[in-house]
């Protein structure tokens, strides 16, 4: 997806989820419906969401032409099409989200003085501690050789968002400019550690874009968010994965969510509850074993034994389960 498309990640995901797997057909349907009901605002809004999800920019431009109610959608499409001068005429710098598109467009056009003026306005509104504001100000300070100020601004960005790649990188560059080579190395090494994870995240999110109804795609996003350390985002992704998973693909998703709940959230009860609910719906030995494992680690030994024995009723010779039972009984 790329770093710039992250600006659109929420839009794309929302549209993709709305679109579902039969999205092309859905887009055709709303396109036809709009011809019949051109004044139906909600229909047009839905159509635009679908068009965004499928990057049908020509539709977005056609469906927003001359309709001030959809100024924002038109502005975003023009931005995505790199038609920055036209986008700037429509983008609202007073809107907290669009302000950053304005800043990016101005930077792309090389209109750096105007960029800096708009940034000052955004700072006045959102506050200096806002990670995006602080990172943008850090880049300006870096560009102008004000390295100490850049260090402070990037540091502020990281205080608000410890995963801000631009701030990690900028902090390293700023420290280097200020002559602090060891400090620069620390920041740049941390940035270097995070970069592949964010690239992996982009890749996983592309999978969701392609098939938002495929649960494992969301689980992959959850895995990467977990590795990055953004646990709420990981949790949300795993829950979306669960929502969209059926049949054989569901078990691995449940196992990953259970591991997340136990290891990252520290909520063994939630993990046990999740596994138990799944087992009630459909007994699956892997889930039962995992439930036993979680219970054992939580020192709920009798329940763990019961869980393992439930597996033995289906697979009486399962060596791994027999070993687990023996170990528990020895305790």
């Amino acid at each position: 997806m790329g770093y710039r498309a992250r600006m659109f990640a929420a839009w794309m995901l929302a549209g993709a989820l709305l679109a579902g797997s039969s999205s092309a057909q859905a887009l055709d349907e709303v396109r036809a419906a709009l011809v019949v009901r051109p004044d139906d605002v909600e229909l047009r809004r839905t159509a635009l969401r679908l068009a965004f999800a499928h990057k049908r920019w020509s539709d977005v431009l056609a469906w927003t032409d001359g309709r001030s109610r959809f100024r924002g959608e038109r502005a975003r499409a023009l931005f995505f099409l790199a038609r920055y001068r036209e986008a700037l005429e429509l983008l609202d710098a007073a809107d907290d989200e669009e302000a950053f598109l304005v800043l990016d467009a101005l930077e792309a056009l090389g209109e750096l003085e105007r960029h800096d003026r708009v940034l000052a306005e955004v700072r006045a509104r959102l506050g200096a501690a806002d990670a995006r504001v602080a990172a943008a100000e850090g880049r300006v300070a870096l560009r102008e050789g004000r390295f100490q100020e850049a260090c402070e601004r990037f540091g502020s960005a990281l205080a608000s968002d410890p995963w801000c790649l631009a701030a990690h990188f900028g902090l390293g560059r700023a420290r280097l400019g200020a002559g602090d080579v060891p400090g620069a190395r620390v920041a740049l090494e941390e940035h270097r550690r995070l970069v592949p994870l964010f690239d992996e995240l982009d890749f996983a999110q592309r999978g969701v874009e392609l098939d938002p109804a495929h649960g494992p795609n969301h689980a992959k996003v959850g895995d990467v968010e977990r590795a990055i350390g953004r646990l709420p985002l990981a949790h949300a992704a795993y829950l979306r994965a669960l929502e969209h998973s059926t049949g054989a693909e569901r078990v691995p998703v449940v196992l990953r969510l259970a591991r997340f709940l136990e290891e990252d959230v520290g909520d063994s009860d939630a993990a046990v509850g999740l596994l138990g609910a799944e087992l009630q719906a459909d007994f699956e030995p892997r889930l039962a074993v995992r439930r036993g494992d979680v219970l054992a680690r939580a020192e709920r030994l009798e329940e763990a034994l019961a869980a393992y024995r439930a597996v033995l009723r289906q697979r009486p010779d399962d060596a791994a389960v027999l070993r687990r039972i023996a170990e528990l009984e020895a305790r």
Partner: protein
Amino acid sequence: MKRALHAVLLTVLLTACSGDEPPVTPTVQALAPEARRLLDVTQDWGLSFVHERGATDERQLPETMGHGAALFDADEDGDLDLYVVQGGSYRERSLTAPTNRLFANDGGRFRDVTPTSGAAADPGYGMGVAVGDGDGDGHADLYLTNFGLDRWLTGDGTGAFVDATEAAGIHDDRWTTAVTYFDPDADGDLDLFVAGYVAIDVDDPPWCGRRDPAWRTVCHPDQFEGLADRLWINDGRGRFTEESVARGVAGAPGKGLGVVAIDVDDDGWTDLYVANDSVENHLWRNLGDGRFEDGTLLGGVGVNRFGATEAGMGVAAGDLDDDLDPELIVTNFDHESHTVYRNEGQARFSDATPSFGIEAATRLPVGFGVLALDLDLDRDLDLAVLNGHIVERVALYDDAQTWRQAAQVFTNVDGRLSLDLELGGELVATPRVGRCLVAGDLDGDGDEDLVATECGGRTRVFENRGPRVATRRLDGLTIGTRVRATYADGRVVVREAGPAASYLGSGSPAVLLPSQGLVSIERRVPGGDWR
């Protein structure tokens, strides 16, 4: 292949040779009524080459990489000949497989001399090519990167080549791409850097894109493991040993597509910059003895100013802001922009793409071949870029994108680059699936002409035609020689001799300088002093 007078342009060739001085060739152009522009003269030159990319319904990655080309004097008659790398089928090679082709320059027309070029007619599924005198016999040799076994071919100066891969100790049957000759240890012979791309199994290709045959698409390189780059060190007699680890060019494998060998920190030793696809680019700093350290982290050239990796394809280097050190330019994927890293000295760079003025114009296209060259002969370096998407049916996924995309030419005014449709002329007028772009003075009129390859399409010749400008061409310089030219108005320009690789290619190694007001020329060979 004797040089002939071009129909329009009068070329006066004066060769000055004294001692070991390289030949200096002043050339004079006749007056032309029209403004300077690039004209498609493919037909006039009689060039007929169509790339076979081996397209299949599986949409495998090699199908979209395109191919390289080289401009060099294969037959040593004083003009630039053209070598074009061919694809074919990457699954299997046969006796009837299409081969790479060599075209001799017959003074304004290319003649296909492949049948007499020996091993230059390589039937491998080709990627890139590098040109240099690897065995030190005074004749150009070729290194061919393939999807499959690479080849090292020695030339005899007549346009004929012999496969000396095995004798040279070279063996690489991985997927290699960018390659360059250079002399990092300043021992007078040319070593080789070869970029590895990714490991794929063509017999078991993953399905990428929507699960609908019409929507199947090439896989993103994130899907595959990257391959290590290799550094082949020459023993001076054309026998090579792989020493990437021993010499420090090692670490996380990249997914290399572009390479430029250039002295980034002005210490007299040639460094390496590698554009990697969707992972961090690499800067390898020469420690002053042919060993390298990873200069990426402190150099600031691994990612863009947002700290994000980009899909590096082609790469160029040159002094865009006239401060006597080279910037690095990388072409990237859509929604990334091509990136210009400003050289801040001491091998430190900053992504100054917006300041250079190319950010907005390059965010939508997918860039490949790129050259920093003085197209309009005003002493500063302009930029020429070939674009073209990697996904043939990309409009299914994004209706703002097209498989064929227009090339771009940016002219430089005081360090600010602006799109120049007039100068770009017929190069930029027609969208194509652009890949390799190489430059050289094909018609001997004192300016740089271009050859552009197209993935699955025709290779084209673009003549740089315009008003009279006197130039001086420095031929025969050692690869990596830095040239400092001083003009009467006090302006100093710096160039580095060597074949600009762009993307998978190898351009003319000569340095071309406008000669009006030229007062002095100084040179420094790798590891040497100014003289």
